[in-house]
Every structure is written in structure tokens, then in C-alpha cells.
């Protein structure tokens, strides 16, 4: 079970709305961290994903384990929220 979801985005990233749309279609809510508005949180996104890219989706499960999905990658996103 999913406890919460955070998505790191930017304003110009075209794949970010795709992830948001996918999660909404599955009836899941999420917190969004827009790195254009909060550039100081870039380091956090990098530490979680190991990549300088967005979207980064962090799925925290009920047992507090985390799954991090880099990019709009349905093959990883779908099982992460299952």
C-alpha cells in the first residue's frame, strides 16, 4: 500500500504532467516539488534518484520503504504504486 507520493518537477518538463496524469488516473494523490520554485531542493532530488533529471517520483509505502522512479517510465511506475 502507498502511504504518500512526492514528485519532483520543473515548469518546462513535458514528462512531469504525464506522471501526474497517470497517478491521478489511478486515484492517487501526490505532493509536488517544483524545482524551478524551490531550487534548493535539487540536491534532495539528486540524492534520491542519482540523476539530474525530472520527473523523479518517490513512492513511500506503509512500511516506510521507498521506491524512486526516474522519468516517465510506466514499466517501473505501475509496479511501484501497485
Amino acid at each position, binding site marked *: 500500500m502507498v502511504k504518500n507520493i512526492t514528485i519532483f518537477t520543473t515548469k518546462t*518538463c513535458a*514528462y512531469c504532467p*504525464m506522471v501526474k496524469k497517470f497517478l491521478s488516473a489511478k486515484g492517487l494523490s501526490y505532493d509536488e516539488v517544483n524545482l524551478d520554485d524551490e531550487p534548493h531542493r535539487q540536491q534532495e532530488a539528486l540524492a534520491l534518484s542519482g540523476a539530474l*533529471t525530472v520527473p523523479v517520483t518517490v513512492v513511500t509505502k506503509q512500511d516506510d520503504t521507498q521506491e524512486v522512479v526516474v522519468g516517465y517510465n510506466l514499466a517501473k511506475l505501475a509496479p511501484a504504486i501497485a
Partner: protein
Amino acid sequence: MAERTEENSHQVIMIGAGPAALSAAIYTTREDIDTLLLEKAIPGGLAAVTDQVDNYPGFPDGVAGLELANNLQQQAERFGAAIEPTEVTALHDEGEWKRIETITGDYYAKVVLIATGSAYKKLGVAGEEEYYARGVHYCATCDGAFYRDKRIAVVGGGNSAVQEAMFLTRFSSHLDLIVRSKLRASEILQKELQKFVDEGKITVHLGVTTDEIVGQEGKVTMVKGTDTETGNEVTIDTDGVFVFIGLSPNNQFAGDQFQTDEVGLIKSDANLMTNVPGIFVAGDIRSGATMQIASAVGEGATAALKIREYLEGHPIDVQAEV
């Protein structure tokens, strides 16, 4: 292999949902032709990840690529086009029905439109794989924000490289444009670029190859290249490298059933039909395409009208002008 059922069968399946396929879908669905689009990434294709489109007719002040992509998608969906997020891995001509293999199962269609466009080419140099997405990037609108007040190098000299380089200056402290031979971008883009050069925001390095992307402690620090005139080594300090050196066709699923040109783009007749009856091709993946959104849209519309004729069993006039 899944059997054909009513659920997995459609009159028309389009592979890709870029500008070419979305435009074709507007036409087919308006005529009540049951149409499914299979898209592995983002509806709108490369247009969706382009910052600003200034040459698409009807937008006197230009339009953001993502906005144009969203509008095309909404318009196709308004008439009933369905977009399925999946990747096509193979295409089989089984006569009346074509079988389309995807990572989520098989689909069948009477007519297939291939509109898969192309993907960014890689440099193939040392350091490129190692620093992928951690200093080496292929999408400015996706990853540019990580280079606020940092040095950026852009590799390439065509329209995309120049356009994306200018976009990236909104983040960079300084940008180096590394061009292997000479600039191939349109004159108007070169004029715009000159303004950035005059303001000291961009330095253009002509006749410089990119030979290696060098880093330290997991971070990119430098591009190493060669001055093609003198043969001397050139080093350019940078925090990130964006590569725009052209595109290679997304044709991996196609096998060898289609006639292609020397770069792998799929050939068509004047009706945009391939050598396989019932399989059409439009947009950047078509041999002879002019790699523009306006032409992809035009080809999508043409393909849709020719598909309708094909479905109606009308003989297709291969001499017809398109």
C-alpha cells in the same frame, strides 16, 4: 501470441502519438473510423519536449511545444481517439489483419499508420554513458533547470542545437556551443544566436570535435575535443553537456519488411503507403520527410484521407500528388 478478439481489434492503429499521428487521428475519428494510438512516451512526441515553436502556422507569436502537443491531443480525443501508453515491439502483416506486438500484449488492425518519428543520436564517446542523466543530457526542457548558474556545453550545429542552446542560457552562467564543422542552423536562428554571442552568454567553437566527456567524483567537469584545422586538443570546462547532433529513426520494431532509405527511414508511395498494403507511414520516420511539425501534421492529414480510401476499398491512385 494473443488471439484476435473484438477488444484488441481496431480499424486503424497508429504507432506513436506525435504531431503526425495525432493529426491523422483527428481526421479518422471525425469520420467515425475506430482509431487507437499506441504511444511509448509522451503524446505530442518531440514537439512536446521542444521549448518554443516559432514556425508553426497560425501562431503569430509562436507557441510552447508542450501547449501545441496538448492541444493536438485534446483535439484528437475530442473526436474519440484513444491513446494507449505502451511500446510497440513488432509488426506483422498477416493479410487482412495486421498484428501489432507491444510490451502489454497484441493488437490487431486493418490499417496501420507508422508515425514513430526519431530519437536523439548519441555521440558515442567516452564518458557519455557513464554520465548519462548526471551531466550528459538530451532534453533541454527536461533537465536544463539543474544547471542554474552553471556552465553548460551544447554539442551540435543544426537547428535543434542552436534553438536549445539559446533556451538553456536562461539557466547557464555561460554556454559553450561545440560545432564539429560549421553551423547548419537556419539563417534566422544564426542571427538570433549572434545576439547571445554579442551579450557574452554563448561562445561558439566551430570546427571542434567532441572526443570525451571528462568528470571527477561523479560530476562532469570538462569536454575534450580536437580543433579540426590545427589538430590541437581543445578542452572546455563545463558542468553539463547537452547533445543535439541529429536524430535516428525509431524503426526497431519494423524488421526488414519495409523498403527503407540508407538512414533507415521508411519509404512510401505518393499515398504515403509503404510497400506493405495497408501499412502507411507519416512524419519524421518517412523517407523524404522534411522534419517539421507543420509537415508532420500535413502528412498525418494526407495519410488519414488515403487510409479512408483504402478502407472503403477504393483503388488507390499511386500517381496522385500529395
